[in-house]
């Protein structure tokens, strides 16, 4: 866990990619879940953030 936070602070690729992956996954789940309309409404914003983040952080150093 400490390594993960450290990696975030030092802008390392690995942990940031994990964050972006989680965001994308969350967005996809929000898009298709049958429970809350509000979650569906905000899903696109979450996915978009995750995707853009993924593209950016994949250029961080290992």
């Amino acid at each position: 866990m400490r390594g993960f936070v450290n990696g975030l602070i030092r802008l390392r690729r690995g942990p940031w990619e994990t964050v972006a992956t989680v965001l994308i996954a969350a967005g996809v789940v929000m898009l298709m879940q049958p429970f809350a309309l509000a979650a569906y409404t905000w899903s696109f914003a979450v996915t978009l953030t995750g995707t853009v983040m993924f593209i950016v952080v994949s250029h961080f150093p290992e």
Partner: protein
Amino acid sequence: MTDDIISRERAAAPGALRRRIGGLSDRALAWIFIVPTILLLLAINIFPLIWTIRLSLTNYRANRTNAELEWVGLRNYERILTDPDIWNSMQATAHFLVWTLVFQVLIGFSLAYLINKKFKGNDLWTTIIVLPMMLSPAVVGNFWTFLYQPQIGLFNYVVAFVSGVDPSSFSMIGDVRLAPWSIVIVDTWMWTPFVMLICLAGLRSIPDYIYEAAEVDRASRWRQFWTITIPMVLPFLMLAVLFRGIENFKMFDLVVQLTGGGPGSITELTSINLKREAFEKWRTGYSSAYAIILFVTVFGLASIYVKALNKVKER
């Protein structure tokens, strides 16, 4: 004759110089080789994509090209993301996606596990199992409507034979409760081999010595399965799941031929829904925004997919 002179000169020139005389530099060649591909992809993928983004901010309708174009900002996105009908089709997609993945992973992995027992003739049977995967989904969907016919269809007959119900008493694609399962069954039939092949590659990538070491440690077969087999196959399985997930998220051809989205709109997956908006109701601006939402989702999943791909490649 001249050829001779050139080649003699080339032989005489040292290293880098020789290469320059003999033709283009590596860098120039690299660009000449890559640029046509990039240009074609820009023209047929990126340019349309940018156009779609632009259209998604307007109220454009492709069947009324001389109507006045109005900029509506993010209104299209807002309307789609609050529309319960589109939300419904997302849920239909989710049902399809989740169950096809569950069945394909369970059956696909089990088959791979069995084939990996290396019984006689396993190559031949693997090839037979793989056949449905490569066929045209639209044609497959079309002929499954025949197999699903209430009385005369083979599927209904076999189900009736096994379970004893009357083969004309149920209609897989006409019944609201059964239709969502009818598409799951066909997709599972078609794509289980895909998951199976990838799992098989995963199983075959596990070196024997790991099991031998576990045997020395007196680990039970059950324990070996959960601590060696599953973790080693997992990256491969992830790859298969992501790929099938992306493919089924945008599923169109198979289902459109099989049920056409019906009965009602019970099997109307997002792509079918989008096709209706774009090419039947001609709400081009609105459906462009819809397309962008699907596209961003797929693009996000694709980046995860490539990450998984590289992980497997390292093995």
